């Protein structure tokens, strides 16, 4: 028996998660998309390593998280990234047929299709989610994919998901009102 999801969701201080805290709103007027990128250990993470050693430039907006396989990317990770402040989520893995774990990247392909369909109904543009196949030799391709994704996200604008949960500041005022109404109606001291 462990804690239930979101138990501390609202008691956490307002603002961004540490992983996305590099850019605070108001710091700069220019919108810099924040991207969570899940890269598989065997192909795509190695591709990003290659891009690094080859001094290939790509957008710094991306926060790379290494996973053993793109099939390890639980849809929870993607949705949690959006909820914590990501503007886009990139999943990269081995080409179909080349998976280190035989066929898990086909599951990624299906989950990705299902997630795009789901987030669209939630009002998130499906293009905020991207799946890239990049082998260990495709450092340049991965770098170009990241830069291209960030460019596309700039066109979509910020997501700022947590703003959807706020009640335009109505909650605090409404609660204060109730305390006074009760005091009036029920002769209870607030």
């Amino acid at each position, binding site marked *: 028996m462990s804690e239930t999801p979101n138990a501390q969701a609202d008691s956490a201080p307002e603002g961004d998660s540490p992983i996305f805290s590099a850019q605070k709103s108001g710091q700069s007027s220019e919108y810099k998309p924040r991207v969570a990128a899940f890269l598989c250990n065997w192909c795509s993470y190695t591709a990003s390593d290659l891009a690094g050693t080859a001094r290939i430039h790509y957008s710094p907006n991306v926060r790379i998280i290494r996973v053993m396989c793109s099939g390890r990317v639980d849809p929870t990770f993607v949705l949690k990234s959006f909820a914590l402040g990501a503007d886009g989520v990139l999943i990269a893995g081995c080409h179909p047929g080349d998976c280190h774990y035989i066929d898990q990247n086909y599951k990624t392909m299906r989950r990705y299709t*299902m997630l795009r369909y789901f987030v669209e109904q939630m009002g998130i543009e499906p293009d905020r989610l991207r799946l890239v196949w990049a082998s260990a030799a495709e450092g340049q391709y991965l770098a170009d994919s990241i830069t291209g994704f960030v460019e596309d996200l700039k066109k979509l604008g910020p997501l700022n998901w947590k*703003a959807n949960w706020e009640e335009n500041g*109505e909650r605090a005022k409404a609660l204060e009102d109730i305390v006074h109404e009760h005091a009036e109606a029920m002769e209870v001291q607030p």
Partner: protein
Amino acid sequence: MSETKKGKLALYWAASCGGCEIAVLAINEKILDVAALFDIVFWPVAVDAKVRDVEKMPDASIDVCLFNGGIRTSEQEYMAQLLRRKSKVLVAFGSCAHEGCIPGLANGNNRRQIFDTAYRETPSTENPENIEPQPKSQVAEGTLHLPVFYNTVRTLNQTVPVDYYLPGCPPEADRIWDAITAIVEAKLPPPGSVIGADTTVCQECPRKRNEKKIKKFYRTWEIIPDEETCLLEQGILCCGIATRAGCGARCPGVNSPCIGCYGANEGAQDFGARLMTALASVIDSDDPQEIDRIIREGIPDPVGSFYRFSLAASQLRRRRLPV
């Protein structure tokens, strides 16, 4: 708790259907044992005690509060805070308090859209003056107050700290009795726990399971399922694979798919995401176009299918608000 000094019990409802209130009585004659062990100090459905009585109680003077319903209005939030303050142990009772349940599905809309539907657009509504609830209205005798209706339904633990969770829509009588017994005998699990099983409905389901490969999802009215084989194997979207056990697999037992009312299993942070993970794994295709077609044709309402009981508790909590 000795017999000389009875405990104090409170029950409250917020955004819920009232089914949880009835579920309390489903423990049948054992309700007399509850009455022998506890004084019921507040239960708007059954006992004549007022909010002002609760407000005058000392803090932490109620031993156990069973709170059902999600938080949809300012009054419900006020009551959640009040009962949290007055109670030693606060239990989120039932799916609404735990995960938002059916009222939480309204998080696919906002207040404006809900009011438009409820007070204007339904065929049975006649409202030529466009009257809708206002937090304050002025009448000759003074100001009348109504609670503020929020855009988003929250779960109880998104509003106040919760000690225990009792899942289910509604919780099964046996599980309720388990919880009451645990409280009385002081054998409660660590605070923050869900009181219930830590496995899935599949564990309790007697159907035969083989390897799953799905070429097409069927909606329940499109197919008469075979009564012995796993429903998911037959292409019916059964949520049992992601849902916490505790109900005895009642729905699959009567040839109807699990719809997930017991919520996410132990350790899962997002019910629908876990369901998507599992469903995507069993689709029998490696072609992106065909995968997309199978999903779109078989699951016309992904949010309602994956999060029927848990949208408010999901990572995203609600649909994006219109800008």
